């Protein structure tokens, strides 16, 4: 089923949870709603499910206005962050619930049994059928919750921070498993998360939201490498920030210059340049030049194949300032540079992305 939301507005008192959101979710795709807490992503998911309502705007399911369709008739499967399993029922009965409460054409007991067993096999937990939810681990509970949602044959699967309450290792396993499951079943799925890694790794498309508005929609690599707004850039990973003005083809920061190709900005314009840690390079020879931003190495984390170097910016007089930078270098490059803590260096970037200063908070 395809989903379209049009110009959704939703306020809680003076707080605008959703401010004119319009989105398309094509059939069969796995889409992530990504944003910081309070950005409205869960509210949007609940509105699509029918568990919440929009003050104005429309929800179209398969092209038909569903704004006044009851939750029961929307054919959605919903997976809650804290599982919401029925605590007094066994795993089997939890999964069977959606089939047992059907009033018209309720399947026979035999059919229900077969269907539930099949679903439990699908989530690889058929050996837990007689347990109670309290006897399961978090990851198992969430898989049961998913099996329960799938039992009613939903056309849409909505997942609200499905891995939010799990520890890092289980989260990673479940993520891969969910992706495989989606590739098998091809149900239109939307999941909410505040974890950018999760969204980028799992989803066909990522919708980045902030303060009730959509910031950017696109494929994972698209959103990551071409962020449309400063918010998206900062939200999707560690970032280094250089404020200054455009001079010719370079960016002037204080008395220093980062040479780079200026794109679409006029001479003298106030801009902010962003660079990811791996897009910065360190130059050891720092004196007698104004190429590169001066900084002092404050910490070197050299475990693993990629080394992380933390630096503080130096002002004109050579004192360290509040502004921090982070650089990622291959371990080999770190060895070549022979950096030591406290050393003064200069930072250069081949790949600065510029935004107008007015668009940054």
């Amino acid at each position, binding site marked *: 089923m395809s989903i379209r939301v049009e110009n959704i507005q939703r306020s809680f008192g003076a707080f605008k949870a959703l401010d004119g959101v319009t989105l398309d979710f094509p059939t069969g795709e796995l889409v992530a709603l990504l944003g910081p807490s309070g950005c409205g992503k869960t509210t949007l998911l609940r509105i699509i*499910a*029918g*568990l919440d309502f929009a003050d104005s705007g429309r929800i179209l399911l398969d092209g038909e206005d569903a704004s006044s369709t009851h*939750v*029961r008739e929307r054919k*959605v*499967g*919903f997976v*809650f962050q*804290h*599982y*919401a*399993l*029925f*605590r*007094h*029922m066994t795993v089997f009965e939890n999964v069977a*619930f*959606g089939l047992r*409460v*059907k*009033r018209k054409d309720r399947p026979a007991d035999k059919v229900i049994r077969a269907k539930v067993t099949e679903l439990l096999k699908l989530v690889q937990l058929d050996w837990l059928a007689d347990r*109670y*939810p*309290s*006897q399961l681990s978090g990851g198992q*509970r969430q898989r049961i919750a998913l099996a*329960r*949602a799938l*039992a*009613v044959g939903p056309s849409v699967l909505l997942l609200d921070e499905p891995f939010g*309450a799990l520890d890092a290792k289980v989260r990673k396993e479940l993520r891969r498993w969910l992706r495989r499951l989606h590739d098998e079943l091809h149900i239109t799925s939307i999941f909410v998360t505040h974890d950018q890694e999760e969204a980028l790794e799992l989803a066909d498309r990522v919708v980045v939201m902030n303060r009730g508005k959509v910031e950017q929609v696109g494929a994972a690599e698209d959103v990551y490498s071409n962020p449309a707004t400063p918010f998206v850039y900062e939200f999707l990973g560690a970032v280094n920030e250089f404020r200054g003005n455009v001079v010719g083809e370079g960016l002037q920061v204080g008395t220093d210059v980062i040479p780079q190709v200026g794109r679409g900005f006029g001479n003298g314009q106030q801009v902010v340049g962003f660079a990811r840690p791996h897009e910065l390079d360190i130059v050891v020879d720092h004196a007698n030049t104004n190429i590169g931003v001066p900084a002092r190495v404050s910490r070197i984390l050299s475990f693993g194949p990629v080394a992380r170097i933390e630096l503080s910016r130096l002002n004109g007089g050579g004192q360290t300032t509040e502004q921090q930078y982070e650089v990622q270098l291959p371990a080999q490059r770190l060895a070549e540079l022979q950096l030591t803590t406290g050393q003064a260096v200069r930072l250069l970037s081949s790949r600065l992305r510029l935004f107008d200063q007015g668009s940054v908070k």
Partner: protein
Amino acid sequence: MAGVASHAFGSSAHAARFERNPAAREPAAVKWLIITVSMLFFAAFLLLPLYAVFSEALRKGWQAYWEALVEPDAVASMRLTLLAAAIAVPLNLVFGIAAAWAIAKHDFRGKHVLITLIDLPFSVSPVIAGLVYILVFGAQGWFGPWLSEHDIKIVFAVPGIILATIFVTVPFVARELIPLMQAQGREEEEAALVLGATGWQTFFRVTLPNIKWGLLYGVILCNARAMGEFGAVSVVSGHIRGQTNTMPLQVEILYNEYNFAAAFAVASLLALLALVTLVIKTVIEWRLGREPHPIGAP
């Protein structure tokens, strides 16, 4: 009242952790002193009277005891007490669930007023409650003339007793359920809804099973109070023998007539009821403690 059930469990593990830890342990003398004080107190003020009731009731032997119980006025009082409880308890059950549901799962204006009102019978003296009914339904009361015109008797009759009983027992079920339902939240009901369950199906398959032990706990407390209530019922009863006397009132009348053996015989039934209630309550608490634990608590 509320929360008694929930606070009783889960603390024992904590206590043991302190007890076995020499760094946190209090001197043994303190422990035994407070245990002795509380035991002596309960023995003197609770067990002794209980013993007195049964020994007085049986002073003239089992024969006299039995005769006191099957005496027609005594039987009538038992019948009335059972009737009042049989009406008041189910009404409070329905009202309690409705009120607890409204308060725990919905937001509305006047929610705090409702919570306060539910507690009112706890804070008002039962005698006042009885007097209110006389003022409203009595011969000189607001509806008195209209009621007597239509030949309906409320005060000094069975309906008055039932009304008074309902009044004093209102909080029991609701107070027990509100914290329980608030703690459980709405998620399981939302899950049922998304899975296609109707309101009734959600209530009977999800909500009710989750609150059943708390509900039963509230109901037995409610029942104990309904059968044991004296003050409010005494005011509206009129003390008509064989007609408007409940068991507690019957005990008083017999006692005032110096018929001690009979008075204590009827009283022993009430004491027995209290004991049975305690046993059921203990069993429920034990069950509650063993229930599959609440899951997914954030």
